[in-house]
C-alpha cells in the first residue's frame, strides 16, 4: 500500500494546475458560462498539444497510454480550477466507451482524432424521465436496410451544441426487462434530423435538448452489440461517476482553500474572523469532509485503474462526494457572508457546480439504493 502519488503523478498534477491557473482564470470561466459555445478553441488546442485528450488512449491510437488514475488527477485539477467545456464528455463519455466496446475499425477511425483534439464527443443517454436506469431509454431505433432510423428526445446532453459525434442510446427491441434491447449508436452530430438547443441550467454548462427526428445511422456505427448496449452504458456510468467525483474533490479543495484564506484576512471585531471558534469548527468539518472524500475517490480510482470490480465502491464514493461537495460549498458561501453570494465571486461557481455534479450520473439516493443492495440487503 502506498497512499501517496508517484513523482510523475505529482508532476502531472502540477502541470495541469499551473496550466489551468494561467489559461482559465475565473473571469474566463464566467465569460464561457455566458457564451453559447461554452469553451475556448485556443485553450482546447493547447490542451490537445499537451496530450490531455489522449491521456488514456493507448499509443497505438496516437494517445499517451497513461492510466485512468492519471486521468483522474487531471480531472481533479480541472474541478479545482473549474474548466468549462467538452473535455469531460469527449474523453469520459466518448474515448473511454470506444476503447471499451468499439471494434478495431472504430478505434482506428475515431480515437486518433480524439487524441489530437480534432473532434468533440458526448453521450446522449437521459430522456424525459431523467433516470439513469434502463427504463429511462425510450428513444427508438428501427432497422432500415443496413441502417437504423432513430426517433426520440434526449435531454441533459452535455456540449451537444458543439459536438461532432453523439453516443446515443436507443431501444432496438422490446425485451423481457428494460435492460434488454438497448443499443448504442455513434451519430454524426450534423446528420439530418438532429436538432439541438441549449437548456438553461444552473451550471451554465451547456446541457442540451437533442431532438432526433428520424435520424439515419449506418449499422456499422453501432458501439458494442446490437440489443446489448446496457452493460456498456453501465460501464460508462461507473467510470463517469468516478471521473465526476475526481472533479468534485478538486472543487471541495478549492472551497476549503479559498474560504480558509478569506477567514484569515477578513477582520471583524478587531481580529481575523478565522480566530472565532464558531467559524473554525465549520472549517474543520469542511477539512474532514475534504479528506474523507479524497481518499474514498483515490481508492476507487485506483480500483478502476487496476480493473478490480468496484461497483459498490463507485456507488459509495458518488453518494458520499455528492453530499459532501454540496455541504462544503454551502458552508463556503455561508462563511463568506454576503460577498459569497455574488455573481462576481468565485465561491458560487463551485456551489452551483456541486449540485450539477451531484445530479450527473446518479444522485445520492439513487446511489444509496445501489449501495443498499451491494452491502447485502435483500431487495
Amino acid at each position, binding site marked *: 500500500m*502506498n497512499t501517496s502519488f508517484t513523482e510523475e503523478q505529482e508532476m502531472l498534477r502540477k502541470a495541469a494546475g499551473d496550466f489551468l491557473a494561467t489559461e482559465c482564470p475565473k473571469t474566463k470561466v464566467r465569460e464561457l458560462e455566458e457564451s453559447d459555445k461554452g469553451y475556448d478553441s485556443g485553450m482546447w488546442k493547447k490542451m490537445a498539444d499537451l496530450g490531455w485528450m489522449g491521456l488514456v488512449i493507448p499509443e497505438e491510437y496516437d494517445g499517451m497510454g497513461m492510466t485512468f488514475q492519471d486521468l483522474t488527477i487531471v480531472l481533479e485539477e480541472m474541478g479545482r480550477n473549474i474548466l468549462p467545456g467538452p473535455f469531460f464528455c469527449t474523453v469520459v463519455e466518448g474515448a473511454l466507451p470506444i476503447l471499451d466496446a468499439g471494434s478495431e475499425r472504430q478505434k482506428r477511425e475515431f480515437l486518433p482524432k480524439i487524441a489530437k483534439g480534432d473532434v468533440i464527443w458526448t453521450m446522449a443517454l437521459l430522456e424525459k424521465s431523467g433516470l439513469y436506469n434502463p427504463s429511462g431509454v425510450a428513444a427508438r431505433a428501427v432497422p432500415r436496410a443496413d441502417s437504423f432510423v432513430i426517433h426520440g428526445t434526449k435531454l441533459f446532453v452535455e456540449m451537444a451544441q458543439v459536438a461532432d459525434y453523439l453516443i446515443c442510446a436507443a431501444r432496438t427491441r422490446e425485451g423481457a426487462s428494460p435492460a434488454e434491447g438497448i443499443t448504442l449508436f455513434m451519430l454524426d452530430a450534423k446528420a439530418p434530423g438532429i436538432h439541438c438547443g441549449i437548456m438553461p441550467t444552473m451550471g451554465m454548462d451547456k446541457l442540451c435538448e437533442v431532438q432526433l427526428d428520424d435520424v439515419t445511422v449506418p449499422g456499422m456505427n453501432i458501439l458494442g452489440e446490437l440489443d446489448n448496449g446496457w452493460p456498456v452504458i453501465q460501464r460508462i456510468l461507473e467510470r463517469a461517476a468516478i471521473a465526476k467525483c475526481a472533479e468534485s474533490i478538486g472543487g471541495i479543495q478549492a472551497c476549503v482553500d479559498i474560504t480558509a484564506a478569506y477567514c484569515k484576512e477578513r477582520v471583524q471585531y478587531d481580529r481575523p474572523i*478565522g480566530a472565532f471558534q464558531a467559524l473554525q469548527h465549520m472549517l474543520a468539518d469542511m477539512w474532514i469532509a475534504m479528506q474523507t472524500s479524497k481518499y474514498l475517490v483515490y481508492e476507487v480510482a485506483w480500483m478502476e485503474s487496476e480493473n478490480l470490480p468496484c461497483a459498490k465502491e463507485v456507488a459509495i*464514493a458518488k453518494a458520499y462526494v455528492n453530499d459532501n461537495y454540496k455541504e462544503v460549498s454551502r458552508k463556503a458561501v455561508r462563511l463568506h457572508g454576503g460577498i459569497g453570494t455574488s455573481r462576481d465571486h468565485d465561491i458560487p461557481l463551485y456551489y452551483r457546480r456541486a449540485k450539477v455534479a451531484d445530479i450527473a450520473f446518479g444522485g445520492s439516493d439513487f*446511489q444509496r439504493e445501489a449501495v443498499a443492495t451491494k*452491502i447485502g440487503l435483500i431487495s
Partner: protein
Amino acid sequence: MDFKLTDEQIARRNEHFAVCKELEKQRPVGFAAGGLESIYDTDEGWQYHLHCAKEFAKRGWLSHHWPREYGGEDGSMMDQVFFSEARGYYGVPGADIFGYSMLAPTLLAAGNKCVKEKFLPGIASGDTMGCQLWSEPNAGSDLASLTSTAIRRGDEYVINGQKTWSTGAHRADWGFGVFKTDLSAPKHHNLSFLLLDMKTPGITVNPILYMDMGHLYNEVYFDDVHVPAENIVGEEGKGWQVTQTLSGFERSSLEFVMVLQQQLEALVKYCNETRVNGEPLAKNLLIRNRLAGIACDVEATRCLAYRVADLQDKNQFSIFDASAVKVFVSELGERMAFLAADILGPYAQVKSSKWAPLEGFGEKGYQQCFVLTIAMGTNEIQRNIISWYGLGLPRMK
C-alpha cells in the same frame, strides 16, 4: 498511489483475523464489542480481556512493532493495522489501550532506559494492565491547568491531589499521569509525567458509575503517595511535551472503524432476517437508504484511516490527520448507535436478555456511544487542532 496489500501482508492480515475469530467464540454473552465498559465492568469481562491479552502476547503481537532490543520484531505499522482491524471486527479485547496503545509507544519515543526496562516487559507479556491519571475535576480539555502535585523528596516524588474519569483504574496494576512538580514555573513548564504502582499506599479509587450503571470510570485520590523518582518519563518539568507525544498515539482509529463495519454487517443481517408486517425490514426503502448512507461513511473513514496509517509508517504523520479520523469515526459511532436504536424499534431499549436483539446493542450503543467522542481530547478540541494546524487559522488569545 495504490491500496494493494502484498501477498505476505494478506497472509498476515488473515492470520490476525483467524486468531481473533477464534477468540470471539469465547466472548461472554452481552460483552459489547468495541466499547471499554464491558472490559472493566464485570469480572467475567475482565478475565476475558486478560485471556485475550495472553493469547496475543504468546504470538508476540503486543510488542511486534517494537525495536528488537526491547523484545519486539521491528514490525511494520501495517501489522499493527491488521491487528487493530481484526480485534475491532471481532470485538475482541486484550490489547490494553493504556499500556499497549498509549504508553508503550510513548516510552519507546521519550522514555529513559530505566522506565523502558521496568514497564515494557509487562506490556509485552500481557501481564500488567494500566490506567491513565489525566483529567481532574477542574482540568478536562484544559489539562495543563491541573493542580495535583508531585513534590520531589530525595529519590521519590510525593503525590497529593485528585484525578478523575480514570477508566479501569479499579482493575489496573499501574497508572501513568501528569502532576505538577514545579509550583512556581508557568503553565506547560511545571508538569512531569510519572508512572506509578496502583497498589501504592495512599491511593484510593472510587467508582463513577456510567449512566447505564456500568463501572468503567473512577476518581482516584492521592494522599502522600510515594513514587520512585526513576519512574519519570522525560525530564522533570517537561511532562507536557510527553503528553503531546502520547496524544499522537491514542488516536489511531482503525480498530473502531472495523467495529463499525461489524455493526453495519450485523444490522444488515438483522434487517434481512426480521419481518415486520410480513416483509423483511431490508425491503423498507427508508431503512435501505439510511443503512446505505452509513455504509458510505464507514468506507470513507476506512480509507482515511488507512491513509493515516500509511503516513505514520512513513513518518510523515501530522497530528491533525489523526484528529480528522478521530472526529469522524467517533461521530459516526454515535450515528450508527442511533440508527441501530431506530431500526430495533421498541426492542432498542432492552438490555441483554431474551427480548434484546443483537445482545442489547440498541441500549448499549445509545448509552455508550459518547465514550470515544469525549475521551482522548473532545471532538471540539480536535476541531481546534485541525483548524489551527491543518488550516493555519489563528488561535484566539
